């Protein structure tokens, strides 16, 4: 059986919509900015993974 402790870290994470400003620099911030800006209408829900 897996240990399910420490998952409070996950529940404490902010939502994308709460992260519009004041992101620090770095790879994570770059990824988050792109996620915020993404227009996902008409995108597949489960993009095929054997294709990049």
């Amino acid at each position: 059986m897996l240990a399910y402790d420490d998952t409070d870290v996950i529940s404490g994470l902010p939502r994308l919509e709460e992260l519009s400003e004041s992101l620090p620099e770095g790879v994570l911030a770059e990824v988050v900015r792109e996620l915020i800006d993404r227009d996902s209408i008409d995108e597949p829900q489960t993009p095929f993974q054997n294709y990049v």
Partner: protein
Amino acid sequence: MTRGELEEATPFRQVLLKVHSRCNLSCDHCYMYEHADQSWRHRPMVMSKRIIDTTAARIGEHAERHGLGAVVVILHGGEPLLAGAHTIDYTVRAIRRAVPKTTAIRYGLQTNGLLLDARFLDLFAQHGIEVGVSLDGDAEANDRHRRYADGRGSHTGVVPALRLLQSQRYRHLYGGILCTVDLYNDPVDVYEHLLGFEPPGIDLLLPHGNWTKPPPGRPDDQTQTPYAEWLISVFDRWINAPRRETRIRLFESIISLLLGGRTTSEAVGLGKVDLITIETDGAIEQGDTLKTTAEGAAATGLHVARNSFDEALAHPAIHGRQQGIAALSEICRRCPIVKICGGGLYAHRYRVDNGFVNPTVYSADMFRLIRHIAGRVALGLPVKGPVRGTGV
């Protein structure tokens, strides 16, 4: 399925076309040829013009019926370039003619790269076909699995294709590199070798396996997580770089899901399946990674000449895969990270005695990886409340 249920079904937005059913390589980890399903032996090698036209009409019918703003068409195989430039050109034109002008079409093609040359790329540039190339690392890493039937490695033959895609002339067609994880390979060496080809994205795929036929090196002991450790090494190298050197879809999907966004990979998250596969003979099938589980596991019994894509939506297996969390195993439904893991890739949940109502065989690895990424995200972003036990 009732009419109401059909109205609520998620339409197919991805169509995987098997334009050629054979390959010029004989990789020992291939899900098409080396696993349970051997249906490729009985199919035509190339998709005929008649099947292409009928498939194109079905895509157009579905796009119109559901008012789709966009559809993704993936040219796949086997090795799709074996179908030849003429068949690929014919396929793309047929689909464009059949699909309403209001529906954007994004074309992608996944290849082993061995036949990819300027002639193909000029054709792809005409049609805006994005190309993904499969490579598992340097020559030693890649050639352990990706070999010709006579045992020769393929790395040397793939490099020229990647150099072409790196060039200014074709860079806009470069989708990225697909890499299957092998625990024998050093993760950071693999990542840095792939970076040398400047891919806009890297897809790290876990080797196919399930509870009946476990993946290589995946122990029964659920406290051991060798695949998570491999992926975490790459994640740390990637996330701690001074700039984003490439996209890594698995990691970015997990970050997105952790922050309440959506996935960009079928391997994680609770998105409803919206992919349909058309084989070279016109058979309508589910995602073909199911071929790793059992003979005929991906089959629906439907065919483009007789059945619409809406009839495929009503197929019990596809309908079941649109039920989100309700379709998962009890263990998954109780798991605190179910919205991120999503039960893992569907094919990896299989067990011969009860089918797919199980966690992924990589459950322990996914749990460890997601906790690690969550910890790193928590350190890098403003977090509500105190952070403890990040698992980093």
